[in-house]
């Protein structure tokens, strides 16, 4: 079989295995450096493997020196030259070849960026082929299966010196004034886009940054691919939510979506609403929410600003997925709610105020002071305050008992003083209602402390256990 003949500089080439221990001694953190070294090894070999034999590169004349008649031909040759892949784990292997490719890529980037009339039709397939060969690869297994993007250092792509230039070229290519979407669409097709999207799982943030800009351009210029791109992003998110819970590029994809949503036509299509309800809202359940929460909240607010009628879906959705044990996430949810309330229409507010303020009351009584504090900050927001004031009759009864109780019980002084401020605000808003509620609260409390244990309920429970035993013995 062909693959038995591995390329000459296969992973176990002596140069690499010797370079590791020596680096280790200098480094002083042997485990870390070994981890890196090993990682890099697997990192580009996955891509490198498929090159059947190593081609010796010879430098070509410079593009800028080429006569106009030969320019395109030379450009094409350079593109073909850049299809050769190098082993970057072995940092000393084929240095000459690497340098030739780097120089060629630099020239290509510069040429596409600065000179006009370079991009002619025959170059499109060659350019896309060069890009595909270089960037499309199965991403290597993560060195750290429990990779935590917030805590751990990402594994960086070893072949970045070339890869970056290829991405740069692609970007310049898309942004060139000569770029013709009608020609490009034959080569930048669905399959191409799908592979591009899969690369968003890369652990290297530099790569994801390029991909984000590139995908944005592709979405902007190739209209025929838009629906397909949205659908595939959907699929990636759904897999992330319901299957793997792992995808490194969620934040980047959401950032692109933020601007896509911005451009949606009104009225919103059913497809877009479905995306909101069945993808964006469930994304809030992810364990790694903190990594992409800002982008997600932005998308959600974009939707509301487009079409106020989705407000109720959003708020009820968030309430459904409200974190039960993770206070850090709870604070994020409260932040998002505030962003939403900032732009909510008063008519929509009325529709959700009841369940919403029940949740807010629950947050105020959280023993975690950051959660309580975040909820109480709502009363510092002018717009929210005006909404509360307009609906004081509904909201105050919902939160009163909690405020009253927590003001007496909370361990944290900041919370207590925040609550006093809120109570004061309410008192000023509607003193009559406030007094009524205070009075009835006291009566309730009195009743509660006076009451003897509810025998009736104990009784019914006993009766019930009896019934269960009877039933289970008959079956």
């Amino acid at each position, binding site marked *: *079989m*062909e*693959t*038995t003949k*591995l390329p000459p500089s*296969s*992973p*176990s080439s002596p140069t690499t*295995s010797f370079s590791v221990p020596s680096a280790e001694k200098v480094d002083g953190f042997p485990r870390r450096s070994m981890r890196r070294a*090993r990682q890099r*090894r*697997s990192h580009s*070999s*996955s891509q*490198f*493997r*498929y090159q059947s034999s190593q081609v010796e590169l010879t430098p070509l004349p410079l593009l800028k020196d080429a006569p106009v008649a030969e320019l395109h031909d030379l450009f094409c040759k350079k593109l073909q030259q850049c299809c050769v892949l190098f082993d970057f784990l072995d940092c000393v292997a084929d240095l000459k070849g690497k340098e030739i490719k780097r120089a060629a890529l630099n020239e290509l980037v510069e040429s596409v960026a600065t000179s006009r009339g370079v991009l002619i039709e025959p170059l499109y397939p060659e350019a896309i082929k060069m890009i595909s060969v270089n960037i499309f690869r*199965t991403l*290597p*297994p993560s060195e750290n299966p429990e990779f935590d993007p917030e805590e751990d250092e990402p594994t960086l792509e070893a072949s970045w010196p070339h890869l970056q230039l290829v991405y740069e070229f692609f970007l310049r290519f898309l942004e060139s004034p000569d770029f013709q979407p009608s020609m490009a669409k034959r080569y930048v097709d669905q*399959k191409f886009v*799908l592979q591009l999207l899969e690369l968003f799982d890369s652990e290297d943030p530099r790569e994801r940054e390029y991909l984000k800009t590139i995908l944005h351009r592709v979405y902007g210029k190739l209209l025929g691919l838009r629906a397909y791109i949205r*659908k595939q992003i959907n*699929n990636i998110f*759904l*897999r992330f939510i*319901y*299957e793997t819970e792992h995808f490194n590029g969620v934040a980047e994809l959401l950032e692109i979506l933020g601007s896509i949503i911005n451009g949606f036509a009104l009225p919103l299509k059913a497809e877009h609403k479905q995306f909101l309800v*069945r993808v964006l809202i*469930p994304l809030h359940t992810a364990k790694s929410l903190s990594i992409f929460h800002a982008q997600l909240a932005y998308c959600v607010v974009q939707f509301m600003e487009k079409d106020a009628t989705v407000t109720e879906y959003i708020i009820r959705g968030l309430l*459904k997925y409200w974190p039960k044990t993770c206070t850090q996430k709870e604070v994020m949810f409260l932040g998002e709610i505030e962003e939403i309330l900032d732009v909510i229409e008063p008519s929509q507010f009325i529709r959700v105020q009841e369940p919403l303020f029940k949740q807010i009351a629950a947050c105020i009584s959280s023993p975690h002071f950051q959660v309580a504090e975040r909820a109480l900050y709502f009363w510092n927001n002018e717009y929210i305050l005006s909404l509360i004031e307009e609906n004081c009759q509904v909201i105050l009864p919902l939160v009163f008992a909690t405020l009253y109780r927590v003001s007496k019980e909370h361990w944290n002084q900041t919370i207590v003083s925040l609550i006093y401020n809120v109570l004061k605000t309410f008192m000023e808003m509607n003193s009559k209602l406030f007094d009524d509620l205070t009075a009835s609260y006291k009566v309730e409390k009195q009743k509660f402390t006076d009451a003897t244990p509810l025998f009736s309920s104990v009784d*019914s*429970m006993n*009766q*019930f256990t009896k*019934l*269960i035993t009877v*039933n289970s013995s008959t*079956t």
Partner: protein
Amino acid sequence: AAEEGGPCSLSKMAGADGDDSLYPIAVLIDELRNEDVQLRLNSIKKLSTIALALGVERTRTELLPFLTDTIYDEDEVLLALAEQLGNFTMLVGGPEYVHCLLPPLESLATVEETVVRDKAVESLRKISQEHSPVDLEVHFEPLVKRLASGDWFTSRTSACGLFSVCYPRVSSTVKAEIRQHFRTLCSDDTPMVRRAAASKLGEFAKVLELDYVKSDIISLFTALASDEQDSVRLLAVEACVSIATLLPQEDLETLVMPTLRQAAEDKSWRVRYMVADKFSELQKAVGPEITKNDLVPAFQNLLKDCEAEVRAAAANKVKEFCENLPEDNREQIIMTHILPCVKELVSDTNQHVKSALASVIMGLSTILGKDNTIEHLLPLFLAQLKDECPEVRLNIISNLDCVNEVIGIRQLSQSLLPAIVELAEDAKWRVRLAIIEYMPLLAGQLGVEFFDEKLNTLCMAWLIDHVYAIREAATCNLMKLVEKFGAEWAQNTIVPKVLGMANDPNYLHRMTTLFCINALSEACGQEITTKQMLPVVLKMSNDQVANVRFNVAKSLQKIGPVLDSNALQTEVKPVLEKLATDTDMDVKYFAQEAISLLCIFFSIRPNLLCLLNTSQMLYFPNSIYPASMPFCTVCCLQQHRLNWSNK
């Protein structure tokens, strides 16, 4: 409005028709609608009780429609509901009415949350068996069809798991429809559905007629195995095993092998990993001929794969693969094709690969026989015993028994010793712990002389390790060694050392003596326990550290049954009674516990306890005793408290 109507009338009916016994059921039904999720959950978990109380008729006409409407609940509640409904057949009136359960389960099979959906599918699969063939066609199959053509991916995903359970029992026209639906799902637009279909492909193939396997399944298999997403392709590898098992040998080459070869060389490491992981199954499924011609080179490639994950998965299969090679030229294949790759893996750059190999490599010696093992494998074992990664060394040591059978352990012992010593002193306590666990096995194979000479000191050194888990394991190890080498050996070699530690200035080491005695007394027998161990234990009852003293009480309780009754009465009892008046409450507690448990041996009449009736028990709150303590112990302790307080 329907949601509201159902339970209201249910609870009213349950409470108001003059039958008070149904009142609790009304409460439960009310709780199904309670705002508190926990209450709803509790109520759902008692659903069978509710159904039982309502009777089959009303369960069908009132409860189930109500449940079908609650599908908008929290996932937690839905999960409980999906599970309950799978066991509901009798509660709706038996198989005749089982189809009543389909509507709520159908809704549950379409929800977003995967665990709920999976549970609903599981329940549907279960109750499908209780449908009569007619009901299956009238009720079940239409449900599968509806799910298969649902517009959101969730319902289509669920449908994939239901085809195989109804296919065998329906008419041929319906069968054709089912096949068509499955085919459609295999080329679904969303990868989620294709993944679900691919994962059920093997299962579905098993229930199909052979002709359809060849005509339908193979094309689906080929398509899924070349899907654009590697997450789909890798699932096809699993299906490959089942499909290959179903087909006659002569069709394998044309129908399955092209796809399998392609998978083994897939550009995605995930697919190659899957092939490596399923290699033994694949090997069995395709038979010896194809194995020889195709799988051997494929396996070589996987062992040399550029991705460490793949190599590790393949290395794990080395032994099984070699074992299952056709016997006529097994040795030749291993020697010329597999062994060279194995040799390379021994010095792999990735420790997971090496340790995967180390966990199976010893198994090759039984297959290759004595001479080959000595000539070819032994150097590898020795190299791995010196590996920088402790896991590799451990894996070799833990599998020594295979080699022992073939060449005897002497060949290895010279290299073994430094490896063991190094592991025994490893900085990571988990490594030390692992090697301790192999000590009894090693001792058995190396023999008592070698052990005394080389390993005994190690075993004793572990007793004063600074990690408790190691000391504990070392204690247990001693017990196993005594079981192996006998009491006499114990008396001569380890007991003196263990007892010597009783005078150690460190109280943790003194306690280790007690723990060792606990472990060893039974294996050493009455003589040694009474004559040598007991005096030490009794002497330690005067220790200044309370932890030592209460461990003395515990030890006495433990070794009591081994001692003779004279020693118990004259020596143990007074000491325990003294400890029972100790100033430390824990010492007191354990001394009293020991007394009460040894009371049988002290020849106190145990049936005194019977005098304690339940009303008396109430004066002694049980909460002062650990919940795990058996009831009789608690009684016993209370009896003693009574005695003491009466004095």
